[in-house]
């Protein structure tokens, strides 16, 4: 510093022709430096604007494609549960197909009552309804055997194409080659909408429901895979938090500094960067093929994600332990506490907010992970049964939210595509909530020295 100050002394005798400069007068060099600074600021702003633009485009794409998944078209039809017909249906092999006849009759009657004339056969009329309608009626019958013989009004789901028409996804022109629906159906749907038989409203079943097969996208929901994700996160939390914290405390507070612990440290950092698909293969080999845990089970998914999350938790825990000033430890040791007492009574509580933040971020990362789940059988038509209890939640086949989204995006019917976007919204809400909790924890409880 002093050297430069000396060399720039204005009264240097060796340079008599040196021009006099003034601070008030901006010379070329200063202008150049100022311009460079301005340019740099502009680069920064442009970078941020590009980032914001992509964020906005992404959010727009997600919301515009996905919000429609939360609404669904329902057709309310009073169905007469004729005792003889119900008994006949229950005696057959494919029971739901017999219930369809009852729905056909009911729908035709409802249309006639509303004064909507149609030339269509009742079996063709049913194409407007979901193929899951029959099972909805049957479920009601099984749950309320006492009401057989009465006429019950059902809110049946409309088929995905009808729903797509009301949402503007399916156009009349697009129906030319469609063998499931024709323009006549659309006229009927318009009339039914006017008569209040077909209404579009919020569909809670999308959030709470189970996955549905390819023939009835309108019935598919993300609920069961949400439960799968929940159980997986439970496994991850219960395993990776205690193991991760114990490992970090030992490494940070008790372990001697030698080659061996250095190696462990390097390996933990490396593990954090291992691609998640590698953990999937490991999980398949170790947990399913060797340990014989069941396939597609959330416990296996949780174990695999635990492996993935552990390094993240260890690294963040060690960082927050390091951030606790040594004076705290020294003071504790000075008043006669043992090493363990100083750690558990003083250091750990002070490091807790940082540990929790790291854990939540690790969990959020695990929640959005799909790749390892591909290999342990959690992608496919899986999330169709609600787990029946705690053990079944861990052990019965289930999917996870990101895996369910991936599965929907693959399917042929465009209605599933809409649901994939809807699923993304649900997943993003979860991730956002977790990240906000992490931020609040950090803001409220973190202490700086």
């Amino acid at each position, binding site marked *: 510093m002093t050297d430069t100050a000396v060399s720039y002394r204005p009264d240097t005798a060796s340079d008599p022709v040196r021009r006099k400069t003034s601070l008030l007068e901006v010379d070329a060099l200063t202008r150049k430096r100022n311009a460079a600074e301005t340019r740099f600021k502009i680069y920064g702003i442009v970078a941020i604007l590009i980032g914001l633009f992509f964020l906005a485009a992404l959010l727009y794409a997600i919301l515009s494609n996905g919000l429609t998944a939360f609404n669904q078209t329902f057709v309310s039809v009073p169905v007469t549960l004729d005792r003889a017909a119900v008994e006949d249906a229950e005696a057959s092999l494919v029971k739901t197909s017999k219930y369809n006849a009852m729905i056909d009759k009911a729908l035709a009657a409802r249309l006639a009552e509303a004064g909507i004339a149609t030339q269509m056969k009742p079996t063709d009329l049913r194409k407007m309804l979901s193929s899951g309608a029959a099972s909805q009626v049957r479920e009601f019958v099984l749950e309320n055997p006492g009401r057989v013989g009465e006429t019950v009004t059902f809110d049946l789901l409309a088929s995905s194409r009808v729903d797509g028409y009301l949402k503007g996804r399916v156009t009349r022109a697009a129906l030319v080659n*469609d063998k499931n629906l024709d323009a006549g159906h659309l006229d009927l749907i318009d009339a039914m909408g006017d008569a209040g038989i077909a209404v579009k409203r919020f569909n809670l079943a999308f959030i709470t429901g189970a996955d*549905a097969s390819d023939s009835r996208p309108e019935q598919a929901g993300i609920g069961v895979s949400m439960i799968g994700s929940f159980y997986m996160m439970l496994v991850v939390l219960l395993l990776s938090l205690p193991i991760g914290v114990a490992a970090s405390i030992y490494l940070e507070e008790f372990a001697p500094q030698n080659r061996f612990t250095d190696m462990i440290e390097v390996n933990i950092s490396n593990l954090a960067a291992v691609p998640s698909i590698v953990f999937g293969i490991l999980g398949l080999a170790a947990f399913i093929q060797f340990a*014989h845990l069941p396939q*597609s089970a959330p416990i296996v998914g949780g174990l695999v994600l635990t492996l993935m999350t552990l390094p993240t938790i260890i690294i963040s825990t060690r960082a927050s332990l390091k951030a606790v000033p040594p004076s705290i430890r020294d003071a504790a040791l000075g008043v006669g506490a043992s090493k363990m007492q100083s750690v558990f009574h003083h250091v750990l509580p002070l490091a807790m907010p940082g540990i929790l933040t790291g854990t939540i971020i690790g969990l959020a990362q695990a929640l959005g992970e799909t790749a390892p789940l591909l290999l342990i*059988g959690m992608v*496919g038509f899986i999330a169709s049964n609600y787990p029946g209890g705690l*053990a079944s939640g861990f052990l019965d086949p289930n999917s996870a939210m990101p895996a369910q989204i991936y599965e929907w995006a693959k399917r*042929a019917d465009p209605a599933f595509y809409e649901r994939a976007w809807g699923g993304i919204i649900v997943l993003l809400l979860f991730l956002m909530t977790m990240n906000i909790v992490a931020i609040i924890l950090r803001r409220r409880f973190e202490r700086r020295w």
Partner: protein
Amino acid sequence: MNIKALLSATAVASVAFAGAAVARDQIQIAGSSTVLPYASIVAEAFGENTEFPTPVVESGGSSAGLKKFCTGVGENTIDIANASRAIREKEIKACAEAGVTDIIEVRIGYDGIVFASDINGNGFTFTPTDWYKALAAEVVVDGKLVANEATSWKQVNEALPDQEIQAFIPGTKHGTREVFEEKVILQGCEDSGALKAMVDAGASEKDAEKKCMSLRTDGRSVDIDGDYTETLARLDANKNGIGVFGLAFYENNTDKLQVATMAGVTPSTETIASGEYPVSRPLFFYVKKAHIGVVPGLKEFAQFFVSDELAGPDGPLAQYGLVSDPELAKVQEAVASETTLTH
């Protein structure tokens, strides 16, 4: 201490899980992504109509599914493999080596393979010869094999529109690829006389067939390893492209795709059932007999799958796009009597 309690709780929990992980009551299915929609429709109906839980259906391709199927017998192996082609001799052997000896083959119906392009583009009327001449790595010109340099469909066949050749065909892990090679490329090779020319030139029949089916690698023909949705996305991005799809997929996306005729026949369930449309293939699933009676509902599921109500011409599978098997009754009988593959 809190953490101590947590640790011991997790230890106890993991032991409890290891103990509980023995009985399985869901049927586990994996395999062809072409069969997946049908299997999931049946699985859903099975769960609704019986007291058994809904089976679990995974995809991944015929070969991957059969490989998984052949890893052995037991709770942590799958019960059923879906396949869009018949099981190979090699796979039966691999199965037998792992202890999977009794395999029940069930044919559920037929699937058409269609060629489709963007709905707003040119329409196409193909013959297998056109595809061979457009996609083969080397074609016969004046009795000699030369590298294929065709760039437009018009160069291949005067009757076709002047549109750049860009084909998206299924990758080699798909059963569809095998059918495409055999029923389209090889057929075209034969029809155009190229096969005969090669044999006349001194190549053995096997070598000549292999030569016929080697496709060009200069980017005109692109292998799609993902599902049909990926093919569709590629067509969306490249309006000149022509994609290979399953009939059911096309029928679900008629608003985006137009289908090409093959040898003058428009693909539909009717023309495939009658055998007029040349590019079709049977769909199968394979059942591990050793699991019948161990995994609850396995035989019931197989019977349910091929029942007239589901796999018949008016059933939900046909509704979705499956061409039902005219000999369904025979299949039902074979399932009922648990007839296994002989080799």
